[in-house]
């Protein structure tokens, strides 16, 4: 018992009394904790006892406390590695395809096109997504089954809803942070990079993936062979 106390000494600290419950809840909810004003206390507490907490989550919950980035872009989250994936399978949640698509879109707009410097006004983002020639047709096709010009009010609301819901989910994950005084204003957090790591293999091999898809399309005329239990619809 004495050993255990030493191993997880952070639990005995005064900081733990004030912060650990919130931190633990956030991490176990899938949230990413980073060095930003709204999470700075949790972040500092976590960073201070990083190794002890890593052991704590590893030994008691069989999950890895991952830390990525440096300085102001550093963030923490609980992750399942190969060892723990089987053990805690029931505690895994999938990032829905809808949210995945918006996440990648957000990264492209923010990181590559650099459309927004800091705060992003949600109606501006919606407007940008709906008017960008590069991808608007794909989006209207996915969420309205129509072209932009033929879109009805319901179609437009569906796209708005998709974007707003995804942003809410990202807020829950700690990938975005909404201004408490203005619910239409948000900031992208460094931890949204997690989406890059999630799809790093696919991103790095995208050229091969496209080639393979094109080959299949040429061979089958666009029809895939449906394997057992593989049908999506």
């Amino acid at each position, binding site marked *: 018992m004495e050993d255990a106390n030493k191993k997880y000494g952070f639990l005995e600290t005064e900081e733990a009394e004030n912060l650990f419950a919130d931190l633990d809840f956030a991490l176990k*909810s899938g949230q990413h904790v980073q060095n930003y004003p709204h999470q700075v206390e949790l972040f500092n507490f976590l960073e201070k006892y990083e190794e002890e907490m890593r052991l704590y989550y590893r030994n008691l919950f069989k999950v890895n406390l991952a830390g990525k980035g440096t300085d102001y872009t550093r963030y923490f*989250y609980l992750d399942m590695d190969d060892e723990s994936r089987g053990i805690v399978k029931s505690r895994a949640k999938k990032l829905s395809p809808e949210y995945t698509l918006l996440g990648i879109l957000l990264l492209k707009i923010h990181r590559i096109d650099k459309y927004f410097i800091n705060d992003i006004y949600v109606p501006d983002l919606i407007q940008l997504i709906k008017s960008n020639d590069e991808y608007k047709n794909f989006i209207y096709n*996915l969420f309205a089954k129509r072209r932009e010009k033929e879109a009805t009010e319901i179609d437009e609301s*569906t796209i708005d809803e998709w974007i707003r819901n995804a942003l809410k989910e990202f807020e829950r994950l700690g990938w975005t942070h909404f201004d408490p005084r203005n619910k239409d204003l948000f900031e992208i957090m460094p931890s949204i990079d997690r989406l890059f790591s*999630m799809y790093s293999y696919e*991103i790095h091999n995208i050229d091969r993936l496209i080639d393979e898809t094109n080959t299949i399309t040429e061979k089958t005329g666009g029809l895939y062979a449906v394997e057992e239990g593989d049908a999506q619809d």
Partner: protein
Amino acid sequence: MLMEQLSLIPPALRTGRQLHFPKILRDRYDLLVPRQEEGLIILAIFQKVRAGTIERTFPERVIVETIKQVFLELGMASARGEETQKYDETLHRLLRHFLDKNLEEKTYQLSSYAENFCDMLEREVHTAINPSQIQKTFNDLVLLLGLKLETMDDFRHWYHTQFFKHKSDIGSQLRGLQAQIEDTIDQLNDLVKNEQDNFREMLIGCEALLDRIKEQADKLSSAFSSKDDIKQLLDDATLAEEFEFREMKREVRIYFKDIEQRLINVSVTIDRIKPKINKLYNDFEKRDFDRKIESFLLYMLKNSTSKFGRAKKLIGRTVHEVEVFLPKGMQPKEYYSDRSRLTGMDYMQLLEPPPIVVQQQNWDEEDLHRQAELRRSQIARDKLVAHWCDLIADDAQHKKKINFGEYYFKILQKENDYEAAVKVATETLREFAKKDGFEVTVSEDMQLDSKHPYTGIWKMQIRNTVS
């Protein structure tokens, strides 16, 4: 003597007096230093001899062919009829210092001056960096200097032959390194400007080249360490009283210092370029990564599919219920979320009674009296209706037949309340229509009353079928 004059810095340079070059040098300068086309002709012949494509001695035809080639390459072709004269003039100029003619055999060969000139050109452009050779050169210099410090004549000989010869070798090695760095910088600039397809490979090539140059510079520095032995020998020499010795010693020291500085510069330049190469790498990697993200996004948007459900009504808007599927083979990614367990805690709170919330009631005090009166009149009417309903029911129980119209007009007369009368009628008829032992009949005969001339009611009778 000429060698000595050329080798030493003329005293006039130090004193600022007017320069006096030997007359012969001034007169022959244009012939000693070839024009571009002449230099290239000599160099082409030199390379042909060395490659064995022509003999060491060659006929005039070979020179004329080479002149033609070089002129063509430089775009100096002459008008028809003037070529022979031009070739002839060039040949004659070259014969002054660069070509020797064998009058008996009518053949030509390159002069020693021409061979030295070509050798010097090649060494200047393509110096094979050879630190171990420099090491040997320095060893020789030290060894010979040790033997040449007895008399001023000996030292002078060492200075003008050994030191000057090797000084040139060392200098060309350093120029070779600097030229390699400049080539690498040009390649890098070209790479940045032109965005070549094999950018990454080229960058790796440049980086490897710089590493090699740095390595060679380090080796040269190491080979150069014998300079300290030379300095020491010069310091210990007994010739220090000689002004000429001191001057020469000063030249040697300045030269070593210069070489040392140039080697440092090579390293500094490379250290300065390295971060730029790293930045180019990063930029390239970032550009490549950005491009891949763009491709990935378009791939995902293009190949994802969706299925539509019913329209969903939300507050203030209606939306499609849409389920999206990622492209075939692309799985949604998992993240750790143990929320189900955590939200279970919410049930614990239900075991404790929620705190009592004190609600603040706002009363419209001015309207209270009106509301109270309204409520009182409603209660009074309800009582009135109940009283008449009870009365009629009682009568219906005890009499064989009652005529509801009579009660209706009595209510009107006594209570003067139409609403109450109608309500009694409704309640009574509803009750007796369903009640066993009673029969309700409504005839289309209008029943009137003289006290209420504007009111009429269908004749309605309740008959007690039991009694």
